[in-house]
């Protein structure tokens, strides 16, 4: 596996969508070094910023403070990227397959409009995780995003399918205009969760302040949760199977979405 180590953090953002197994898999290390990256407005090469070592292969390992490195793993379909450190925006955007792991934090738009594969971030993530890019009708349409830390605004905005689970705190507008898929909020979220949602499911293990356009319908122990619980348990996310109150909404959007809020047994 090629190992790329950032020599020093770039002064302005470095756009490196070429660093993905789909591009590097068949390449020699020299060819990897020669791949183009954009440092601000300058077109340079991977080798100008990274030392490249190891063997050619289906996976890539990255080291260093990549906070200003954007678009890693863009549109990747296979293989794996292991990032040891923090990473910048658009990590795994348009991801279709394969797996990305981050030990640190990631920026905004993690898994933006992704359709498959998995992204696992141990630290915090920015806003618009799994979301639709501005103007697009839908956000992520498949795959899984797991976040151990906190997440920013508009988590899963306009998502259509797939799963996002967050252990830490989540800010406003989680599940904004959701069309399908599942959000799991292990520590709840701030305001306007599920705003304007049409379909899909948001599960929260902490109480939420709901919009006036959501109405409680029943207490609920849905069977489909078992499937998600099993899938999440493998990654250390524990989901209770019963004890939820179901809210329906968002009625401002004629929504058929559901919010399942876990109520601690009395």
């Amino acid at each position, binding site marked *: 596996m090629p190992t790329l180590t950032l020599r020093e953090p770039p002064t302005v953002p470095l756009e490196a969508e070429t660093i993905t197994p789909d591009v590097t898999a068949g390449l020699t290390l020299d060819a990897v070094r020669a791949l183009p990256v954009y440092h601000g407005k300058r077109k340079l090469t991977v080798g100008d910023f990274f030392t490249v070592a190891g063997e050619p292969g289906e996976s890539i390992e990255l080291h260093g403070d990549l906070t200003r490195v954007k678009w890693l793993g863009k549109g990747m379909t296979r293989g794996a990227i292991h990032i040891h450190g923090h990473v910048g925006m658009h990590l795994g955007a348009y991801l279709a397959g394969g797996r990305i792991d981050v030990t640190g934090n990631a920026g905004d738009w993690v898994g933006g409009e992704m359709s498959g594969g998995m992204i696992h971030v141990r630290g915090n993530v920015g806003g618009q995780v799994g979301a639709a*890019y501005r*103007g697009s*009708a839908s956000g992520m349409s498949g795959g899984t995003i797991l976040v151990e830390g906190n997440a920013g605004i508009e988590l899963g905005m306009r998502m259509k399918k797939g799963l996002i689970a967050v252990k830490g705190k989540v800010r406003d507008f989680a599940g904004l205009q959701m069309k399908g898929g599942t959000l799991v909020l292990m520590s709840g979220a701030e305001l306007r969760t599920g705003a304007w949602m049409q379909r899909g499911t948001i599960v929260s293990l902490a109480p939420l302040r709901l919009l006036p356009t959501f109405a409680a319908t029943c207490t609920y122990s849905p069977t489909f949760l078992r499937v998600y619980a099993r899938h999440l348990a493998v990654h250390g996310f524990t989901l209770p199977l019963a004890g939820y109150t179901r809210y329906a909404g968002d009625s401002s959007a004629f929504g058929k979405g559901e919010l399942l809020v876990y109520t601690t047994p009395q």
Partner: protein
Amino acid sequence: MLRIRGGKVYDPKNGVDGVVKDVCISGGNVVTDVDGGRVIDGTGLVVFPGGVDVHTHVAGAALNFARGLIPEQHRNAHPIVRDHIRRAGIVGATPTTFATGYVYAGMGWTTVNEAAVPVLSAKHTHEELRDTPMVDKTCCVLMANNEILLDLIEAGDHERVKHVLAWHVWAAKAYGVKAVNPGGVEAWKFGGDAKKLLEPVPGYKTLTPADIVSGMARACDELRLPHAVHLHCNNLGAPGNVSTTLDTMKALEGHRAHMAHLQYHAYGGDDWLTFRSESAKIAEAFNASPNLTCDAGAVLFGTTVTITADGPWQHLLYQLTGKKWGNLDVENETGCGVVPYVYKEKNIVNAVQWAVGLELLLLIDDPWRVSLTTDHPNGAPFWRYPEILHLLMNADFRKEQIARLPEKARSRIILDQLTREYTLGEVAVISSAGPARALGLEHKGHLGVGADADVAVYHAEKDVTKMFSHPRYVIKGGEVVVEEGELRQVVEGSVTAVKPAYDPEVEEFLRQLFQQYYTMSFDNYPVTPDRVHGLQVNELN
């Protein structure tokens, strides 16, 4: 000086239909002969007068509003990367201004008529035209929902209608007069519409859309404007609107009119479920009316954005699509709506629309009276014109495409029965000579001595789409701007405005009403000549 030697020349205005000859250029014009200068070898190439677009939306507040509404389309559109001659931009359904010029010239089109300009924001339109290089430009001022004008038509004060119209044409630095959904946009300002040609417009006692159509057409004729009233009929897009369109043709009472995007006005059926083509009826009536010209407003399948001053139609489209919608009302003059749209082959209504545009182009027997347009960007972006030419020139290709349509759609169209194939000479008519004549632009659309030296040189090949998408050479105003399919230099274009004669008294008449009903100072209303880049004035007596 420049000589295009030995190309096969198609110059329909001068009766030249595929004759091998030289075209000589000097000082920006076509001349009889040149001594020296550059020679382009035209052997085996086809030489056309530069394309003329009689109806397009390339600049102005409405288009610019649309640009802001579709970032998702721009993101996936073809980008123009800045280089030593080109400014950065985006192509897509609503190209940015510089990109518009590059792309039009890049396929051999060198003159465009921006079809919808409100006076109130005409300054803005001219700002955008200034940043649209490579093409010469004209525009039409929107008048059929101007409240001052409508009151005068209702009062039967025809003399003043003429003067008010004339004043506005010059105030907007326009070339012609546009009528969109006469009375309907006015009614939309209270959420209504004007669908029936012979019934009063909501809010008026007696004034009907027919009165507006005939009053404006007559005034344009009497003012001797080089371009007839540019007419977007009432009831656009609606099932069964064929009757409205036929009534409009009658209401013109023999006056000249250019019927814009006729495709959108040639539908039968009682509702969306029974929607069908009525192109045969429209073409028959049109063929029998020598006072009329039209453009196709053809539709191609794919993603675009629809923009029209027809506000009520756009609200309906928003309700039908359930997606984005933008609306603008322009004080007491006009308005516009914007809805991003995808024409789908498997959608029966869309499939019928696709067929109707082609049917009209094939059924109208005089190519001089029908121009190639898509009502850009409404039916498709202008850079897809070559695909339409392909469909017109090759009946077998057309058959293949028809076979892809849903069975139900095929039973509601007549395209499969039409075997006509356009010749290259006819293509030169509908894409250049015809629209130039419809616009009354005497120096455009031909290669006779004295014509503007706008020339497109194509490499003839079976793949018509490819042939017309990538001209070998394009010459604009005598300068070679495209060579071997690549943009080689950027040139500025002119703006031609018409100054009809009007009674100066009309200005005081307008000033009073204006100050009562508008929100800006009357003196700031007209576009001053210094704001129009490359202004050429055609003064009428």
